[in-house]
């Protein structure tokens, strides 16, 4: 069976624009495969190149070497089978919530009434019925994330790429959103690559957790199958013995890298 998304031996080296001899290799020889319907979390210390990896998978960034395959086919240009949930604000501020949700359908050429019906349905699914006419600045951070989620999922992507989507939210909102995300994913299983620096979040949500080393030349140093039963409640599952066992096991492997990353941040 071919993987939904396969990053094969990806290396990304950035060259400084002012001084061409200054190089920084963010990602070094990384291979990551995600099966169809699999929820994979990628954790790693801050600044280790997690987002770089995701941008390569999205087709927004061309790797220095290595290959991306989407359902067996080499990726050229933007990854049309993937949806991307960004870490920072990505909604178009000049469009209201409904128009933001339907933007992708509009780009695709779907007729307006059909797109709007579909958009309203998605707003309802993310719990924002009746908020369609509001502009992004009139919504709270959590509501904006819900609109972003609907905006991505309405396109029915086979692969969903998420870059620390909930990191800007408060703890309570975050747990609610995590549960809702699991519910939506459970209903219609897509392949998910979920980037986070929060190990608990990663274990609670995923089928598999991949641990990255500290930068530069980030590469995977651990790959753990999370055999917790589904459906899960992200709050309750954190209390189970198996969760705690997995957490301490993965944390043990991560600890040194986190410290390394921390020291590097300090030196910058």
């Amino acid at each position: 069976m071919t993987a939904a998304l396969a990053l094969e031996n990806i290396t990304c080296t950035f060259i400084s624009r002012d001084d061409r001899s200054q190089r920084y290799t963010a990602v070094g020889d990384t291979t990551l495969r995600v099966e169809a319907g699999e929820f994979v979390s990628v954790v790693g210390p801050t600044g280790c190149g997690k987002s770089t990896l995701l941008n390569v998978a999205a087709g927004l960034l061309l790797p220095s070497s290595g290959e991306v395959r989407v359902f067996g086919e080499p990726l050229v240009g933007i990854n049309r089978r993937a949806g991307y949930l960004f870490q920072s604000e990505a909604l178009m501020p000049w469009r209201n919530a409904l128009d933001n949700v339907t933007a992708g359908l509009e780009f695709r050429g779907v007729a307006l009434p059909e797109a709007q019906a579909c958009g309203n349905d998605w707003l309802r699914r993310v719990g924002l019925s009746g908020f369609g006419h509001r502009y992004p600045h009139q919504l709270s951070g959590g509501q904006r994330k819900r609109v972003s989620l609907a905006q991505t999922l309405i396109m029915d992507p086979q692969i969903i790429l998420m870059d620390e989507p909930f990191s800007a939210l408060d703890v309570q909102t975050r747990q609610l959103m995590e549960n809702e995300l699991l519910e939506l994913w459970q209903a219609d299983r897509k392949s998910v690559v979920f980037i986070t620096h929060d190990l608990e979040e990663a274990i609670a949500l995923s089928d598999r957790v991949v641990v990255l080393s500290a930068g530069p030349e980030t590469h995977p140093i651990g790959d753990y199958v999370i055999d917790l039963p589904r459906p899960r409640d992200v709050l309750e599952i954190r209390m189970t013995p198996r969760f705690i066992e997995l957490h301490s096991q993965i944390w043990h492997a991560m600890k040194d890298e986190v410290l390394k990353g921390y020291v590097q941040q300090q030196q910058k």
Partner: protein
Amino acid sequence: MSSNNKNSGLRRSLWSRIAPRQGNLRVWQVMLLLLAFGLWHVFTSPTLLPPLYFDDNNKAAFFFGEPLKVLSRLWDWFVGGEIYQHLWITLVETMLAFLIGTVSGVIIGLWLALSPMASAICDPYIKALNAMPRVILAPIFFVWFGLGMSSKVALGVTLVFFIVFFNVYQGVKEVSPVVLANARMLGASQRQLLRYVYLPSAMSWVFASLHNAVGLAFVGAVVGEYLGSAAGVGYLIHQAEGVFDINTVFAGILLLTAFALVLDWIVGIAEKRLMVWQPKSGETERI
């Protein structure tokens, strides 16, 4: 003693009733205008005050005009109907300069901002053209387009274009890279990016510049008329100046100011309509 206290209390309550606040802003604005006209009248009227600075009673009026005569001149213009033809010509020149300058500024601004090579090549020339004092082009435009309306429109366009152009250019450069990446992930083509991301993002910058652009479109029209024409408010001012009719000069200035304000107000309304998505500070309501 007690009656004194009462009096001051009364005065305070009277003041609190008429003190400037959001509700009576317009009243205070009108009062400021009346005050300015009052002072103007008092200091220029030949008979009201003995000459303070000039050695002759009539000199203040000669240099600064008299508000009553200025207003009566405006009245005569509108009642006699003499002004409409001139005003119409100046307004048409202004509007044409404004429209042509804005549209070309938006188009060329978008083009150069999205094509780094073209922008790199044109950069020094754009800077040179912008640095050049545009009014000295007026004689050339008279030769090219004659003394009619088109030479004034051309002068106005050179003034409006650069303001709008630089703002569009900046607006496109400031588009959030995340919003852009998001639109691309949602499947937007280059054309759709232009229409749905770059253009709306640049519009907020464009509107900020349009208020300046309106004023400059007027400058182009009036300066052009002043330098050489047979009609328009600038022509009227030039004629009046030739015979030292300072009241008519001031009447023309007031008229132009009023119409520039009206145009600016129209731009403000359009901005409010089109920019509803922009966050305004302090949108809470006190109950």
